[in-house]
């Protein structure tokens, strides 16, 4: 395991007077600002890439699976799908969902979900700052994950759109299979404080597949 390192303020991007939000994962240079967040502008052409997507808006929803809000979300437990607005709705549990949207849109997502909930009991919380989120993309992604996670990643068991929560490198992690342009791709989310550790662990496990760090994606989600 390489030595874990964190964001170094000395290497931070020069900003004005406004607040700067930072991911728990150290951004590789060049570092730039995106919607108030420090992100890496690095671009990789490697066949297997790991990118930090922590700045994306992440809204956690808890409500009854029979509620109007659950119907609005449409996605069942263990599955994920994009809604009309391009947000990824993840069925994280029997009564819980995670909605992932573009950076800076958490308030908007919260408002729309609360409106959909109406008067029914529901918890809609912006967890953007509480979760680290990374994306692993490439044909060897499955082989890498098999080294740190005991789940069966075969297409028949974990197809595109599948989601589950399991131990990844001994960290409780929400895993979403979210293929990109025909390539296997996995989103992995854990609580923020373990983000750098999870990122470093994936890099270490991917060493034999020559995994490379990619910067924050233009497409976001």
């Amino acid at each position: 395991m390489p030595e874990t390192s964190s964001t170094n303020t000395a290497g931070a991007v020069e900003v004005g007077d406004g607040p700067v939000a930072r991911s728990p994962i150290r951004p590789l240079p060049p570092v730039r600002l995106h919607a108030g967040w420090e992100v890496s502008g690095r671009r990789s052409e490697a066949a297997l890439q790991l990118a930090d997507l922590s700045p994306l808006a992440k809204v956690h929803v808890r409500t009854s699976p029979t509620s109007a809000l659950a119907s609005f979300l449409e996605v069942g437990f263990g599955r994920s799908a994009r809604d009309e607005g391009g947000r990824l709705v993840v069925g994280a549990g029997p009564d819980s969902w995670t909605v992932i949207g573009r950076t800076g849109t958490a308030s908007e997502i919260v408002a729309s979900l609360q409106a959909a909930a109406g008067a029914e009991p529901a918890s809609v919380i912006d967890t953007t700052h509480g979760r680290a989120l990374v994306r692993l993309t490439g044909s060897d992604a499955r082989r890498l994950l098999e080294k740190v996670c005991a789940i069966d990643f075969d297409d028949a068991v974990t197809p595109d759109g599948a989601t589950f929560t399991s131990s990844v490198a001994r960290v409780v992690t929400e895993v979403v299979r979210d293929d990109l342009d025909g390539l296997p791709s996995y989103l992995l989310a854990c609580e923020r404080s373990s983000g750098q550790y999870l990122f470093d662990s994936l890099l270490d496990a991917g060493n034999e597949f020559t995994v490379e760090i990619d910067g924050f994606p233009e497409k976001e989600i």
Partner: protein
Amino acid sequence: MSTAKRLLSGRPTKMRITSRPGEVIDRSKPVRFTWNGREKSAFEGDTIISALAASGERVFSRSFKYHRPRGILTATFHDPGCSVQVGDEPNVRGSHRLVTAGMKVTAQNVWPSLKLDVASANRAAGRFIGAGFYYKTFIKPERLWPTYEKVLQRFAPGGRVSADSPHGSYDKRYAHPDVVVAGGGPAGMAAALGAAEAGARVMLVEEEHSLGGHLRYGSETELAALAELRREVEASGAIEVLVNSAVTGRYDGNWIAILQRNLPHVTERLVKARAKVVVAAPGLIERPYVFEGNDLPGVMLSTAARRLLNLWAVAPGTRAVVLSANEEGDATAADLSDAGVHVAQVVDARRGEQVVRARGAGSLSEVELGDGSKVSCDLLVTAVGWTAPTLLLNVAGDRPVYDERAARFVPGDGLPANVLATGGIVGDGPTAALVEHGRATGRAAAERALARDGTSVTIPSLSPAPHPALYRSRTHGIVDFSEDISSKDLVSAAREGYDSVELLKRYTTATMGPAQGKLETINTVAVLAEATGRSIAETGTTVWRPPHVPVSLGALAGRVLEPVRYSPMQPWHEAHRATPIVAGQWIRPEHYGDPAREVRTVREHVGLIDVTPLGKLDLRGPDVPKLLNFLYVNKWLKLDIGSVRYGLMCGEDGVVLDDGVTGHLGEDHYLMSTTSSGADAVAHWIENWLQTTFPDWQVYMTPMTTAYASINVAGPKSRELMSRVVSDVDLSPEAFAYMQVRRGTICSVPGCVMWRIGFTGELSYELHVPAGYGLYVWESLLAAGEDLSAGVFGLEAQRIMRLEKGHLIVSQDTDGLTQGYGVGLDGLIKLDKEDFAGKQELEWQLERQGYNHLVALLPDDASVVPPEASQIVTGDRSIVGRVTSSRLSPSLGRSICLALVAPQLAETGKSVTVHLPDGTDVRAKVSEELAQFDPGGERLRA
């Protein structure tokens, strides 16, 4: 000059012969390496031993006990005489490890050299050091054991490991194949193909460096069959092939452990395969013959000779005698002749002919046959039968049975549905029969794995061929080549009463060496049977147990996965040289150089501490007050919006579980804080109650511990500092009093939560900032407070100040037995509540009394700080308590403690004896208050 010498002369290496059809060496790629410091040449594809044999070497090690010279026996991974040291790596299986350029290979466990080994003097004393010698000789007198141990260690085998040896790269992999096929010979390959054709995902595991089993060193017909099988396997998209890998065991739920070796970037990998069905196709292991001199270099199995000839194009000798009891022996004689090795005599055991003894000084030079004739030779090949490696069957619950007609064990009828067997372990036949059986078995495995009917699959019969029962000649020889156990040793042990095979094994250590019974189990049983006058079936056999091959500790440990957690302010802590402390998974600043100075900063000015690890749980819903009222021992049904309350949680056993404050943020919205170490446990505790006992309550709990960066701003100037960075909250004492909560904007960051509490005993604000802005807010606060002498403080300063204030830390000042009424918070426990977690037990506590109490202790000698965990003792040295926290208070200039003490000591002014780890005692008095600093709380309410 003989034919053999003519053929061999003039070659680049002494024993390398002309190209063979199935050879695995690449003659266009020469490799150079060293053997005991001398340079040797090889070709890519050579093993260490094949390369050395090609160069004419015949001795590769010395035996375990008698230090007899040992050469090639099996030319496989399991060859007991071919373990060598490679660089810093001991016990390398030289007949398996491929040679690489620059490799430094040495013989291990010899002194001063392989050729002249002093310990070989043991041979002279061999008759006195039979089975049980060490047990009997070195057991007494006991006081001499350290001396014995030192001497014996010098003779212990096993090579050398340097303490500076670099750690290899090891990892694990989880796999979920439908079918695992253990063994990549013809039947195993066919089984994999059959399973794949039937729709299964297959993992095919082969111990050798390539698929094929015995076909690899077989006839041209067999090589053609192999090529076709390989082509089919490669073409299949459903078969994952793992070569140079071994199935080491099977565990519950068809959990198959597979060891992969020498991968790019990875020294060894443990594959944890959860297979629906496993097919055991390990083939057969050729059995050595027991006779005098059977371990001389130059005596080898027929499969070893064929492997050397046909895989690595190495002549195993120049003049051979072949003892043959089967087709393999006959084929070996033919291969030897074909390769130009003079076959001096074929001894046909099927006609009653036999070998009686082998002779030679250092290596074989003559064989004596059953009729008394003697034949000069440097190679004796034996082909006397097979051992079925039944490990996978044994561990699946089967008890293989001895088939006298075939002279080997065969599968019993105890296999579960998810384990099948094919190939040599089941029976014999030509390649086509093995393939047919394998393919059908694979199809049946797939049917079972995919939960289909499977009745359409008919597995053809495959029976073991008749074979003469040949174990021992009329002379005695080595049975266990790893442990140097002879048949004479076994007979002696049986005469001593060790006539059960399990006892015999443990007494003599037969089958307990590196070969783990693969070569010697059946011969051991046969010799015991002969010694006791029983049949082999009556004698029975020892049970094979995993691992099938040695597994390194590195592979078992795998990748080092030790999660660590960091706060958003970690970069600042590192940049300012904070001394880290590991708190659970969290890495936290213990201090920044001088904890006492940090205490003064807080007491006199204002200090910041990173308290991000504090548990934070978001609670929403109309029934949250009911939940809080149930979880905490105090009352919670009435808490105004904007207020914060301290609460204590007990488990159902009345033992202190956690504590913290919970704030009422808005309508049906609360934020609960827990201890740093208790965050996960409390979250699970809450979810458990909600899901199992109160499913009708409308409450949603969301862990938010790391969604917020948490900063405690403490000290008399904290309000002044806060006023500089908070724009939308009235911070006046009247508007924002002690134990109140507000939401607002800090350093231009909206959505922050701030509450007034005082763990340090000072006026303080605990800020919870959206975590991504944590570092920004931390740095902004320090910049804003520069003229206020604002500083930072770590855990140590915080612990000092909370101890001065008498605030307990759950799990530091409590333990798994500390009862709710024992922590000095009796007034908090409201037994008049309808119900709450632990109520019944707390009622009994009150009635029963007798529990330990948390008290403050002040040592009589104020300069003595009793270390935490120091015992409190009575005059008769009975233990009546312990110090839970202790520090030298910079604010008070004296030592202060918290302690759990027996109830009779928990009285103000009571003098107790504290026993220190250095053996001395100090006296201390129980203080009236837990708090020694500002007991009235005026500072924190300022």
